[in-house]
C-alpha cells in the first residue's frame, strides 16, 4: 500500500449558478505521474486552481499527504510541498533568468522574510540556482531578462521556477501548449528529468505527451471524472471513447 499524495473527495465548485466541478473523487499516489485530460471547458484548469488554493472550494475535501488543505491560501499550500506552473506563462519578466529561479528557491531554502541576509552573499543559494539552470539547460541565458526570452524558453523557465523549491508534488498546467514538435520533445524530456521521484500532476492536451509521460490518466468531462486508470485501460475504456477520446487517440497513435 503506497502513500497517497493528493486525495479529492466529492469536490465541488460553482461560480454563481454554473457548476463547473461536480463531485470529483480522485486519489493520486506518491511518486506517480498523473495526467488529467478532457475536452475544453471540462473544468481541468478549475480543478487545478482548487487544489492549489487559487479558488475557494464550494464543497468536498482536498487532502495532501493526508492533511486537509481546502481553502488554504496558495502560499500556505506551497509551503506544504506543492508547486505549480500556469497555462499562461507566469514568470517575472523584469528580472533575469537567474533571479527568477532564485525567487523559487528563497522560501524553501529558509530565507523567508529575511531582511538581514544579502542574497548575493549566500553561496548555497547561488549554487543551487545554477544547478537548476543547468538542469533546465538555461545556463547560457542566465543573465538575460526573462521578458526577452523566446516562448519555449519562457515555458522551460516556468518549469524551472516551479521545481526550484524542491516541492514533492509538481502540478503543470499545459506545459507544452503552443509549442512546436521539437520544442515539445525537449520539454517532455525536461519534465521527465526534473520530476524524477516526485509526484507529477499535469493537465495536457497533447495526447502524445500524455501517453508518453503518464503512469495514470484521469478523464474529466463536464466536471466529473469518468475514468481514472493506466493509459492502456483508459484507451480501451468504452465510456472514454464515447465521451471524448476515440478519434483523438487513434489519430495520435
Amino acid at each position: 500500500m503506497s502513500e497517497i499524495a493528493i486525495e479529492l473527495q466529492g469536490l465541488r465548485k460553482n461560480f454563481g449558478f454554473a457548476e463547473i466541478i461536480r463531485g470529483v473523487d480522485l486519489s493520486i499516489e506518491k511518486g506517480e505521474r498523473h495526467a488529467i485530460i478532457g475536452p475544453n471547458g471540462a473544468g481541468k484548469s478549475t480543478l487545478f486552481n482548487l487544489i492549489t488554493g487559487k479558488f475557494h472550494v464550494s464543497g468536498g475535501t482536498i487532502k495532501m499527504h493526508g492533511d486537509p488543505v481546502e481553502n488554504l491560501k496558495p502560499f500556505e499550500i506551497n509551503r506544504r510541498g506543492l508547486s505549480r506552473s500556469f497555462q499562461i506563462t507566469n514568470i517575472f519578466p523584469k528580472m533575469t533568468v537567474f533571479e527568477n529561479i532564485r525567487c523559487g528557491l528563497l522560501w524553501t531554502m529558509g530565507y523567508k522574510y529575511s531582511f538581514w541576509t544579502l542574497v548575493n552573499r549566500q553561496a548555497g543559494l547561488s549554487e543551487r540556482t545554477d544547478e537548476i539552470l543547468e538542469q533546465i539547460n538555461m545556463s547560457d541565458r542566465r543573465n538575460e531578462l526573462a521578458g526577452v526570452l523566446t516562448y519555449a524558453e519562457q515555458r522551460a523557465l516556468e518549469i524551472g521556477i516551479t521545481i526550484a523549491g524542491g516541492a514533492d508534488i509538481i502540478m503543470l498546467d499545459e506545459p507544452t501548449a503552443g509549442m512546436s514538435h521539437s520544442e515539445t520533445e525537449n520539454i517532455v524530456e525536461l519534465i521527465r528529468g526534473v520530476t524524477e521521484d516526485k509526484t507529477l500532476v499535469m493537465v495536457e492536451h497533447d495526447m502524445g505527451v500524455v501517453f508518453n509521460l503518464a503512469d495514470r490518466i484521469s478523464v474529466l468531462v463536464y466536471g466529473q471524472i469518468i475514468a481514472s486508470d493506466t493509459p492502456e485501460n483508459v484507451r480501451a475504456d468504452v465510456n472514454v471513447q464515447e465521451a471524448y477520446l476515440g478519434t483523438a487517440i487513434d489519430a495520435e497513435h
Partner: protein
Amino acid sequence: MSVVKQDSAGSRIANPLITVSQFAPWFVVIVFLSLLPVIFTSGAALTIMNQMAITIIFALAYNMLLGQGGMLSFGHAVYMGLGGFFCVHLMNMIEYDGLWLPLPLLPFFGGLFGLVFALIIGTFSTRRAGTVFAMISLGVGELIAASSIIVVVFFGGEEGISGDRTMGPETFGLDFASQLEVYYLTAFWLVISALAMYLFSRTPVGRMANAVRDNEERAEFLGYSQRNVRFISFCASGFFAGIAGGIFAINFEILTEENLNLATSGSILLITFLGGVGFFVGPIIGAIVFTFLQTVLSLYTEIWQLYLGTLFLLTVMFFPFGLTGLIAMHMRPYQLGKISLLVKPYLRMAIPGIVCVLSFSSLLEIAFHAKHAAIGEEHMSLFGFGFNSYNILLWLVVLVLSIGSGWLCKRLAVGVREAWDEANFVEPRS
C-alpha cells in the same frame, strides 16, 4: 527597466560583504559629499544641499514602495512628518526635561516613530496593491493632515511646533549651532540610509518585493504571502521616511501641517517619478534635479509650478522611466559602439529645441504679465531684455518663434528616430 544587477556577476563562490567594485561608488560619494561644502561655502548653498539630502532620503524611501514594491502612495509625507514632529518633541524634552540624547542619534528615533506608525497603518493598507492601496494612503494622509490642525498638543495646530537643536549634550565637541556641522550630520545620515536601503533591496524580502510587484500571483505560489512582503517593505519605507523627518527637524527646527499634507506627498511622487522609479539612483537624480529646478525657477518666475507640472506630465507621457531611464536607454547604443550615430541628430535638434522651450516660456511669461500685472506696470523684463508686455509686435515675434521652432523640432524628430533605430539595430544572429 531592470537595474544593472551587481549580484549576477557570475561567481559561484561566496562574495565578500562588499567588493571593491561595489564599494567604489559609495567611496566616491562619501568623498564628494565631504568636499561639497569646501566648494560651495555660502549659507544658501548649504541650505540647498541639506534640503537635497533630506529629499533624497525621503525619495529613496518612497521608491521602496513605488519602484520596488509597486505601491503608489499619495500620503507618504505622513511618515516623514510624524517622524519629524516626534523629533521636535524629543528636542524639546532634551531642552526642558533634561532628557539625555545626543542630537546625531535623533533621526534614528524619528525613524522608529515612522516605523511604529507604518506598522499600524500597514496592517490594513497593504492588503492590496494598485488603486486600492493608493486610495487608502490618500485617505490616511488627509486624515492625519486634517487632524494635525485640531490636535494641538502633538502637532501645535496651525503654527506647528518648533524646537532648538543646540540644547543637547555636546557630541565630539559639536553643538550643531553652525550650518556646516548640520550639513555633515545630514550627509552622514544620507550615506547610512542610502546604503541601508540599497542593501535592503538585495535581501530575500527585498528581492521578493520586486517579484510581488511584477507578478503577485506567481510569488504566492512560491510560498510568499504578497501581503506580508508588501507589509515589510511598507514598514521599512516608513522607517526611512521617519529618518528623513528627523533630519528635517534638525535642519529647520520647526514642523507644521505642511509637512504632512497632500502637496508634500504629491511632490515626492513627482520627484521620484521624474528621476525614474525603476532604478535605485532614480530618486536621487530626481531629488537633485527637482530641488535645483525649484530653487532656480522660483527665483525668476512666478509660474514655476506651471513649468514643473508640465515637465512632470510630459515625463509621465513620454518617458515613463524618468531621467534615469533616459540615460539608461543609451547604454545599449553605447555597448553596441553606435552612440556616435546619435550625436549629430541630437545636436541638430538642440538648437530648435532650446529655442522652442525658451520662446514658449516667454510667451507664457508675457501673457501672464499682461494679464496679472498691476495697471500702469506694462514694463517687464525677460532674459535681460526689458519691454512692454502689451507690445503687439513682440507678441507676434515670440509667437512665430515658438511655432516655428516647434514645427522644426517635429520635422527633426523623424531624423532622430531613424538614427535611434539605427543605433539600436543588432545584426540578427545567423
